[in-house]
């Protein structure tokens, strides 16, 4: 098994299924990976494959209709799944791990000044003695993400989309966590603003050594931050490897097809697409979940392949690579 003392985050066989009228939705189904301090990991995959749910499962931000929630999550060597909710909230969420949720810029409270909202995690977790100190730290966080501190005193509607997105980023950074999840942090923004925000993230990674997990469906954007790349399909990870190998030669047939379907601006390449559609997470196929759409499928694929280390820190869930 993996060594839990080494590395920032170790996730083992994590499952999060939701209860629905039609039956359990296996949104995250047996995810295992580990991440060291420093390198940024990106999680890519099609809409509905479980990317946001994976972040929520690790951060224990669970909805009411949980059907099953099992597995182990080690953060800095501690199994945080075992902590009581109260201790998890006090010691882990926002303090050691934080999240910029999908579409977070639209969920700022419209009647609270932006500065107060960004400072809130510090007050809630008693990381600042008083509001004054908390606001001082919020000002620092604003400078870090490139927002003028004048905006501390403004309300969300007075900020553009790009500014609001930077503000929610500042909020995730303010308690100086070890790990920050970024769920589609730029997908609603224009290209130049996107690039400016990715520049900010690159700078923070380089200067503060903060570890990011970036969730996105956009492969080109993912390459702006990735040191490690994880591909998710049908609630499971199917490949995990260094970004260099991933962008040039992915191994899993799904990852290969996905890369081949990415349009390139400068390079002339024949584009491919994946026929069919992703599996339902209500009753996913029992064997490999990609088998139905896979060009290299063979008899073995009716059984579920293991997610296996194939060498060089590369993990693949495919019978072609065991």
């Amino acid at each position, binding site marked *: 098994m993996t060594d839990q003392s080494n590395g920032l985050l170790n996730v083992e066989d994590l499952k999060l299924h939701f209860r629905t009228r039609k039956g359990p939705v296996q949104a995250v189904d047996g995810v295992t990976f580990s991440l060291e301090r420093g390198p940024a990991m990106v999680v890519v995959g099609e809409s509905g494959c479980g990317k946001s749910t994976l972040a929520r499962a690790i951060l224990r931000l669970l909805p009411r209709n949980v059907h099953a929630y099992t597995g182990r999550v080690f953060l800095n060597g501690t199994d945080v799944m075992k902590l009581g909710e109260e201790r998890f909230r006090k010691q882990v969420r926002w303090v050691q791990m934080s999240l910029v949720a999908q579409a977070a810029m639209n969920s700022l409270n419209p009647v609270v000044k932006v500065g107060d909202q960004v400072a809130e995690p510090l007050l809630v977790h008693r990381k600042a003695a008083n509001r004054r100190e908390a606001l001082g730290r919020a000002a620092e966080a604003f400078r870090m993400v490139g927002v003028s501190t004048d905006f501390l005193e403004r309300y969300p509607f007075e900020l553009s989309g790009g500014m609001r997105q930077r503000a929610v980023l500042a909020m995730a950074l303010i308690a100086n966590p070890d790990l920050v999840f970024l769920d589609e942090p730029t997908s609603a923004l224009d*290209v130049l603003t996107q690039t400016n925000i990715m520049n900010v993230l690159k700078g923070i990674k380089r200067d503060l050594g903060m570890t990011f997990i970036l969730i996105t469906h956009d492969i080109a954007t993912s390459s702006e931050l990735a040191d490690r790349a994880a591909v998710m399909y049908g609630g499971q990870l199917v490949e995990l490897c260094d970004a260099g190998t991933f962008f040039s030669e992915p191994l899993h047939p799904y990852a290969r097809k996905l890369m081949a379907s990415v349009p390139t601006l400068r390079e002339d390449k024949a584009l491919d697409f994946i026929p069919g559609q992703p599996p339902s997470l209500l009753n996913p196929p029992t064997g490999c979940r990609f088998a139905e759409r896979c060009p290299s499928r063979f008899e073995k694929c009716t059984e579920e392949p293991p997610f296996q280390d194939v060498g060089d820190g590369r993990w693949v869930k495919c019978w072609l690579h065991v």
Partner: protein
Amino acid sequence: MTDEALLSVSELRTWYELRKWGFFHAGYVKAVDGVSFDLARREAVTIVGESGSGKSTLAKTLLGLVPPTSGEMTIAGTKLDGEKKGKGLAWVRANVGFVQQDPYGALPPFMSVQRILGEPLEIHGVPKTDQEQRIREVLEEVRLIPYGDFIHKYPHMLSGGQQQRLVIARALVLEPKLIVADEPVSMLDASVRVEVLQLLRRIQEQHDLGVIYITHDLSTVRYFSEFAFVMYAAKLVEKAEVKELIHNPLHPYSQALLTAISDPDAANAHIIKEVPGGEPPSLVRPPSGCRFHPRCKHFMEGVCDVDEPPAFQPVAGHEVECWLYREGEVPVDEESA
């Protein structure tokens, strides 16, 4: 007749009036502000621009869904001006197909595929006996096959890619001469985007259609058309062949866009890109002169902030609205080299 323009647009403006308390005039959102271009028959052109630059407003104006404030439009020889608006509109509806941005919102949820495709035929008086034949043809055209599997389905029973193909089928059902496709693939997953774009491209070529493809995603452009217009703050600031635009962008805004967009490569993670800060301008009170001047690194005081640049043509067939290219000016790349 073959080289006659299918569509000709001149100095088109579409302004939305802003009203305070629903009553007092409070200015205009100048969403399309002086747009001119020609589209030849069988030509596909892409309009690329960022969110809020006015792309959808331009599309809706061309489709007669929003009235223009001023300017002229001629489609296949039919001039759509004030007096003939009514007649022109009916003509537009029958001859211009529209593929909307959001397939999920574009399809009526309680109508079957058959009704969705049958209704426009019904409205345009196609006899019942011919309707079924035509529905079958378009479904096969967009590869919803065998058509019998789809005809009785409702939109929610289709995947996103299939829904978007149905929207395309609906745009095609009356055999239009021109299709306006507003972000036809942006709501779809990467893995099916290409399939839909290629489908649209094939249909365009097979039926000699004119297509205006609107997108914010520059990286898909070259897979679809030979020619592209770059839209910034309600204006078309650059017009060029796609290859030329990608390898020799002239407008500083286009140059910034190209810098911003990278092809997937692990090296990207280690490069801080030089792009202008700031945000796209307000369309209610756009900057004076060139609308990009507050963000432009080549800003020339007393020039760029005074007059709106006209279209210059420093390279044959490549137009740009930027003062850097007026006669005698130093070309951009020499200056920065």
